[in-house]
């Protein structure tokens, strides 16, 4: 599932943008080291193929479920991880721009979840070792399904972590995880089956193109360990820097609302599930409160108390009145300008 712009905070989106940009730069450099001008059109056309093929749903008999091709594994098998990563990045960018799948701010998250985790983690660490050299049909199919399942589980874990860290949901880390992982297990098996069918077909019809099992790494690229280390480092640096910026200026209205809620009840700790003090108790809350105090603070903002908070809560009428007026003014401005432009446009030639 695509991460959405509506669910990310600037700190999380910025960190993953930085990580993704770093991996893209490393992948681009890896391709430059091994120039092959046949690859330019091949990557482009394969990107369009994955895009179109993902719109075809295949049904699984007697289950009622259906699924589509998982692009990352197939592309990695055909092109090698660095080129596959760049193709996935381009597919996700076009999806974000034209279909608003995810969004531009969350694009870094999506490229990481669906591109990096499949091409640089699931493919080299699951698919390649499991398929081994000269795999049988069953083994190749099993490795493909395993790679797709692991890749999708990691991707969905990424979505959960990114959303919880952004502090946009009241779901606790564990219940959100329980909601997401089983769905993606099913989706992963279906995606893996479709991809396995395609990989088997390709190996039989064009064995020269699918270099599965021939060499451990089909195309030269940056070693997995180096990429992983660079990604971790970039994530830590970007996360640290951005959370510092975000926590330096706590959000005024938000803390006053939090205080208004607290004063509306008996005390700040007596709130129902989802109250800030409770959310810190989730494993992720504890972990990240320790790892990045600033980050946790942006999501929860504890301990901010303002004197004028109760007044804010009671004045929601003027807030909603103002909101209605704002929307009306913008709508009027838009339609007025539109009408004006229509009038001023020269009449079409007969």
């Amino acid at each position, binding site marked *: 599932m695509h991460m959405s712009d509506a669910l990310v905070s600037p700190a999380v989106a910025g960190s993953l943008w930085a990580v993704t940009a770093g991996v893209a730069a490393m992948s681009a450099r890896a391709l430059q080291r091994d120039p092959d001008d046949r690859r330019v059109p091949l990557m482009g056309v394969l990107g369009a193929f994955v895009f179109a093929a993902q719109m*075809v749903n295949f049904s699984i008999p007697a289950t009622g479920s259906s699924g589509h091709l998982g692009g990352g594994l197939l592309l990695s098998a055909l092109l090698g991880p660095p080129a596959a990563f760049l193709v996935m990045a381009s597919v996700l960018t076009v999806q974000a721009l034209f279909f608003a799948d995810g969004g531009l701010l969350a694009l870094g998250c999506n490229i990481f979840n669906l591109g990096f985790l499949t091409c640089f983690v699931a493919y080299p660490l699951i698919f390649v070792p499991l398929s081994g050299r000269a795999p049988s049909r069953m083994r190749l199919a099993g490795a493909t399904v395993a790679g797709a399942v692991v890749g999708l589980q990691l991707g969905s874990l990424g979505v959960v972590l990114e959303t919880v860290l952004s502090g946009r949901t009241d779901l606790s880390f564990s219940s959100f995880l329980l909601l997401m992982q089983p769905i993606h297990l099913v989706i992963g098996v279906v995606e893996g089956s479709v991809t396995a069918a395609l990989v088997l077909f390709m190996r039989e019809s064009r064995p020269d193109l699918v270099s599965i099992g021939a060499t451990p790494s089909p195309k030269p690229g940056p070693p997995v360990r180096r990429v992983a280390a660079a990604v971790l480092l970039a994530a830590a640096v970007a996360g640290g820097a951005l959370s510092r910026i975000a926590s330096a200026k706590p959000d005024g209205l938000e803390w006053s609302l939090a205080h208004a809620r607290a004063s509306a009840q008996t005390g700040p700790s007596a709130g129902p599930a989802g109250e800030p003090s409770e959310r810190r108790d989730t494993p992720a809350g504890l972990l990240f409160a320790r790892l990045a105090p600033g980050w946790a603070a942006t999501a929860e903002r504890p301990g901010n108390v303002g004197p004028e908070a109760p007044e804010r809560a009671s004045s929601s009428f003027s807030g909603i009145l103002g909101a209605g007026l704002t929307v009306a003014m913008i709508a009027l401005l838009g339609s007025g300008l539109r009408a004006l432009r229509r009038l001023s446009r020269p009449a079409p030639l007969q």
Partner: protein
Amino acid sequence: MRTDGIAAALAHVERLDGLARADSLAGRLDPRAKLATTLAFLVTVASYGRYQVTALLPLALFPVAILTLGDVPLAPILIRVALVSPLAILVGIFNPILDPSPIGSLGPFVITAGWASFASILVRFALSVSAALLLVATTGLDAVCAALSRFRVPRVLVVQLLFLYRYLFVLFGEVSRTLRAYALRSPSHPVPRVREAGALLGQVLLRTLSRAQRVHAAMLCRGFDGELRLRRPLRARSADVAFVVTWFAFFALSRAFDLPRLLGNAVAGAVR
């Protein structure tokens, strides 16, 4: 017929692409100005607190202005906004249940924190989706790519985006024809099954690969040397600078002050 989804998607891309080619005030702006302003807009929207709903609303001025200055019809944008992302719903729908603590009231109605954060997610969604679509509808992917390469995005990635986009139409058509052929030959189950995926997609993939070889040969005939040259020269005019400065100032203003609340207070005070 199962090709409906692909046909609809193709029609949507073609429509946005056609809009971008039309001449309009917003279309004439430098793509770098539009890209930078859109990104600033998205960061601003995401930076609001999780319970803020009304304070976000003045930002709707940006998509409305681009819609108007770009002569973009409302329908295709609204349709996409209406197809709310399932993830945003999945994540947001639990907030009203999990967080029923009151944060305000409107006459007899109590506004709870959960509903406020859910509404905030939906408003954010509408704002960010419309801004991204309007960027493409007034700029086009070629110009966005030109701006990206000026912003030092790796060359390989920009060229990849341009290639992908160029062949999207061809491949959508190919997949769509293959599915139609399948549906005509198997009327009892028009949705292909997983074990047929290999042969079905494989045929398209084989044709795709040989197409890539022909494209490469054609490119070599035209003197391709591994470098793709973008045709559109970018020149920033004073209008572009004014566009960027004005919007950045507006985003900062509406982020710093809760404009609807100030307006509401002023009107309520005047009425009293």
